[in-house]
């Protein structure tokens, strides 16, 4: 299905799944944004301002203003050296499969984005932090980085401008917690990926104690297009205030699971019914997690909401990564909540008590419910636990994220939880 709108992130991709190499990327207008920046004498602050004006918000899930994040980096001659740019390519949010596409199919777009972002924050060294299971992305990124070095697009004195950027690919050893900004910094320093206390925030004290910006893959991929075509054009791509396009996806028992680049603000219903083709024959829609495992369930009443950061925040959920996981009526909502909580309990790094202790406790309650051993009072215990995982009780967002599906499942599927307890069994088994 093709809509009549720009798809800057995916338009160059080959339909056979092969990689867009350097030559193909350049023929399609690639590496023009970095040339524009360096040859027209744009300053780092001007690039930062342009991205700020575009209203680009972080595509990793949190939706922080990208240009604003960049503006926190100290600049000038007297700052601690070097400054680091990190591309967070540790895509591990369950139900999320968008960054993999961008890296496997068009790796030079990411590299050019990193070059422009690196210029904007006056970075000297960049790392792409890639999860270990993304083996094809690793091969293709490594090849693309080598191509960029061979053509002197990376390294010393890019395009004779005096700007230099080293870019390295780091392959992770695993664990969801590495996707947390400061957990990632510790992993890159060769340590356990425990999160750090904030403040100080990474733009002032980050990797090896130096100024550091961490941006998601999709966020970085938007940057060259903003420079090429302007902040106003980018804002105009979206249907709502949050600018740009977004890679939206759907998985679960829908007719056509997949991934589509659509205007920000496309409604949940359009994605679910027009792009994903609606539910498979024989199953009915019950709810969905709009953007990965750590987002609150949405149900029928929310289907006409625009998928963007602001609208879903207002509805009490989050857009997260924008890749929805659909729950159908043949699948047990308690079982699904158990699966999600099992994931978060397993992936807790063990640093903060509400997380390592509470998530395991909640998982055991959900497991016992699924196995027919639920007790009266279990739902109160679950609700109490999720309050303990609130932001501010832990160093990072893992436990607050784990609370979202549990709290919303208790709200929207309350009767199903009650039936598990009163019938001493899972009605779906």
């Amino acid at each position, binding site marked *: 299905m093709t809509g009549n709108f720009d798809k800057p992130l995916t338009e160059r991709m080959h339909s056979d799944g092969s990689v867009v190499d350097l030559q193909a990327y350049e023929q399609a207008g690639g590496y023009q944004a970095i040339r524009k920046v360096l040859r027209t004498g744009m300053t780092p602050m001007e690039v930062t301002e342009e991205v700020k004006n575009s209203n680009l918000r972080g595509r990793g899930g949190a939706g922080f203003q990208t240009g604003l994040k960049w503006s926190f980096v100290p600049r000038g001659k007297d700052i601690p050296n070097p400054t680091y740019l990190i591309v967070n390519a540790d895509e591990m949010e369950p*139900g*999320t499969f968008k960054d993999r596409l961008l890296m496997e199919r068009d790796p030079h777009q990411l590299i050019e984005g990193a070059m422009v972002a690196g210029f904007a924050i006056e970075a000297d060294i960049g790392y792409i932090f890639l999860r270990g*299971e993304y*083996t094809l992305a690793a091969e293709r990124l490594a090849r693309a980085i080598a191509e960029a070095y061979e053509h002197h697009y990376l390294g010393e004195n890019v395009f004779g401008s005096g700007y230099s950027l080293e870019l390295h690919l780091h392959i992770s050893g*695993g664990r969801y917690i590495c996707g947390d900004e400061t957990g990632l910094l510790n992993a890159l*320093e*060769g340590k356990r990926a425990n999160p750090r206390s904030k403040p100080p925030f990474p733009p002032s004290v980050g990797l090896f104690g130096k100024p550091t910006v961490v941006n998601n893959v999709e966020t970085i991929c938007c940057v060259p297009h903003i420079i090429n075509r302007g902040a106003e054009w980018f804002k105009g791509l979206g249907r709502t205030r949050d600018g740009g396009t977004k890679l939206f996806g759907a998985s679960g028992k829908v007719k056509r699971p997949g991934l589509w680049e659509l205007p920000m603000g496309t409604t949940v219903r359009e994605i679910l019914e027009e792009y994903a083709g609606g539910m498979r024959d024989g199953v009915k829609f019950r709810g969905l997690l709009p953007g990965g495992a750590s987002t609150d369930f949405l149900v029928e009443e929310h289907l006409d909401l625009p998928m963007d950061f602001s609208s879903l925040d207002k509805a009490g959920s989050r857009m997260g990564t924008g890749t929805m996981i659909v729950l159908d009526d043949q699948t047990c909502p308690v079982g699904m909540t158990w699966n999600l909580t099992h994931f978060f309990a397993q992936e807790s790094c063990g640093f903060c008590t509400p997380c390592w202790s509470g998530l395991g406790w909640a998982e055991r309650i959900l497991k016992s419910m699924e196995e027919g051993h639920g007790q009266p009072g279990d739902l109160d215990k679950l609700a109490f636990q999720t309050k303990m995982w609130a932001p501010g009780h832990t160093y990072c967002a893992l436990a607050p994220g784990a609370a979202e599906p549990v709290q919303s499942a208790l709200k929207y599927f309350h009767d199903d939880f009650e039936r598990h307890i009163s019938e001493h069994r899972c009605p779906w088994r």
Partner: protein
Amino acid sequence: MLTAEEIQEIETEAGHYPKREAVCIDALRIVQRHRGWVSDDSVHDIAEHLGMSDTDVDSIATFYNLIFRKPVGRHVVMVCDSVSCWIMDYDRVKKHLHERLGIEYGQTTSDERFTMLPIVCLGCCDHAPAMMVDRDLHSDLDPQKIDSALEKYK
């Protein structure tokens, strides 16, 4: 003892970081790629090479799930147990693999051909259920596809 090849690969990666300890995870991955897993001796050798304590290196090795601190078979089957695969009948995939290989998670077949492990979301949710064997992703799994996929790994 680390081999010359391993040391060379570790040193190449070490050049990407301002501090020597930072290459620890890369070093563990490199040794594992050559030997299949990371033994106590390898932990010691990496520690010595990087000027770290054995305990420090082991605390890192045991934190990261893609570093194996026990011997594994010639091929490692990692089955996605996250939410989208679970909805798409992960239980059937797991059951079939258990029956077919005769092992539970964390175990290795007696011919040392396969080790089976659970893995978190592989980012293949639109083609769930999915698994990885070594470096290869296998998707849209059903018992027939699993059987034919396993044939390739001797």
